[in-house]
């Protein structure tokens, strides 16, 4: 496990996307420590009467030269609303890097990175790392409609992006499992690395299992500590309850009772 820190970052950019998402760029006072793709941070919220605990947010991108990392956040409640109000110069305390991350060494040469909605967040750093390692990843992203496709230009710089939208406004109409990448070509991929809503991850996992393709999913359970002590975020595995925060968030699907 990588060494974890608690550090005050400075907000150097804060961009709202479609009134529903915020992209925060956070600068470390010194050099960033080692971070695995698929790891997350626990963000301390600005003082609030209603929100008490930290919020777990996946790491969207890491830029060592600029000493920055990026968080792509969907505004869903009081806590994330507070994060959307941050402006340049604000300080934000992170406990990080947390969790295990995706298994880059087991992803193979041709992994398919499947993201649904804001579940695309960890896929940018993951894609970059896989390319650095010499792999040829492809993305498959699903959204409700065109405006739910986040950071497309950034992803397209790295690898081919396959798209599905529920309303058919762009790409294949339907869910990611309706795309030919999964429906007919799944066996061409060395592995599937998935993050998104639970029904989508379960549907993709079922396809992967049927095709005998290795598949990892990144879970998101409600958590308090982020470091495996409160035992609130457990998921059922074949070896009993495991903490999503410290023994996940990434699980190989055969570990789970899916």
């Amino acid at each position, binding site marked *: 496990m990588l060494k974890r820190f608690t550090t005050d970052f400075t907000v150097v950019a804060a961009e709202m996307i479609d009134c529903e998402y915020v992209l925060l760029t956070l600068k470390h006072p010194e050099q960033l420590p080692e971070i695995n793709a698929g790891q997350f941070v626990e963000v301390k919220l600005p003082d609030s009467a209603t929100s008490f605990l930290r919020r777990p947010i996946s790491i969207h991108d890491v830029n060592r030269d600029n000493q920055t990392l990026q968080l792509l956040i969907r505004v869903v409640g009081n806590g994330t609303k507070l994060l959307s109000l941050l402006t340049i110069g604000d300080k934000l305390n992170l406990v990080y890097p947390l969790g295990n991350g995706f298994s880059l060494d087991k992803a193979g040469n041709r992994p398919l990175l499947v993201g649904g909605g804001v579940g695309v967040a960890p896929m940018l750093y993951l894609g970059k790392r896989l390319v650095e390692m010499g792999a040829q990843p492809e993305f498959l992203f699903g959204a409700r409609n065109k405006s739910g496709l986040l950071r497309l230009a950034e992803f397209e710089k790295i690898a081919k992006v396959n798209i599905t939208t529920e309303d058919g406004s762009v790409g294949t109409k339907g869910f990611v499992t309706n795309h030919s990448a999964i429906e007919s070509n799944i066996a061409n991929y060395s592995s599937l690395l998935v993050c998104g809503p639970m029904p989508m991850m379960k549907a993709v996992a079922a396809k992967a299992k049927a095709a005998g393709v290795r598949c990892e999913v990144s879970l998101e359970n409600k958590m308090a500590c982020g470091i495996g*002590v409160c035992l609130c975020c457990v998921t059922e595995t074949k070896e009993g*309850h495991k903490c999503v925060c410290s023994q996940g968030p990434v699980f190989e699907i055969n570990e789970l009772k899916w």
Partner: protein
Amino acid sequence: MVDLSVNLNGLQLKNPVMTASGTFGYGYEYDDFIDVSSLGGIIVKGTTLAPREGNAYPRLAETPQGMINAVGLQNKGVDYFCKNIYPKLTKYTTNVLVNVSGSTIDDYVECASRINELDAIPAIELNISCPNVKHGGMAFGTNPVATEEIVSAIRKVYHKHLMVKLTPNVTSIVDIAKAAEAGGADSVSLINTLLGMAIDAERRRPVISTITGGMSGAAVKPIALRMVWQVSHAVKIPVVGLGGIMNATDAVEFLIAGASAVEVGTANFIDPTITVKIVDGIRDYLERHNMNSVSELIDSLQTE
């Protein structure tokens, strides 16, 4: 140089700050963030005779300035603890206490006697106050007769410092504390979590799988402080105060109310370095008030 040490009825603490069971794992989860040995003590996760899977997910609800949990004493059992976890704890040069829980008196007694064999564990915290298990747990701690009975039974097999952790979910916590003292407790710690509940209005469903759970965090501090003040003036054994301690000022308030030491719990989730900041803050407070030792602060509430 102020003296931060506390003698808790024979249990020597280098400072009055300990960690509350269930919020600090086995200590080593915090090694990246702090020098765990610099604390007065750590109280590791509730341990039972047999392994427990705990309750189903979801186990957590956030509340205004607090949280509700329903973990249900998930742990791998005392044998696993002794064999696999205890060897990793002997490196710490502070008091490592084990929180002991169970369903029946026999379970508790067996578990405590196993822990009694471990040289590097100077004390146990007897948990008769967990609200998240169906049998045992809080059932013992809500009745003075049952409290005295179980404490006496443990006293016969456990020969080191016996701390008894009390539940606030009672009519008179003083009566329970007196029963623990009569049963042979060396100290009492209070409060465990308050029984609470959270509802998801949109879905008309409970937020956590067990419907009710244990509430902790800043919101419970006034209740904990009141109970610590009441109990510390009703028993002769030392009181360890906990419940909603988020910073050094909170900790100082518990000491003033009559606690001889404190435990920091939920605050560890929000700042993994908070315990050492609280130790430093207590030192600063003593210097600022020209006090030479923590003992001058304990029970120093002026009511006139």
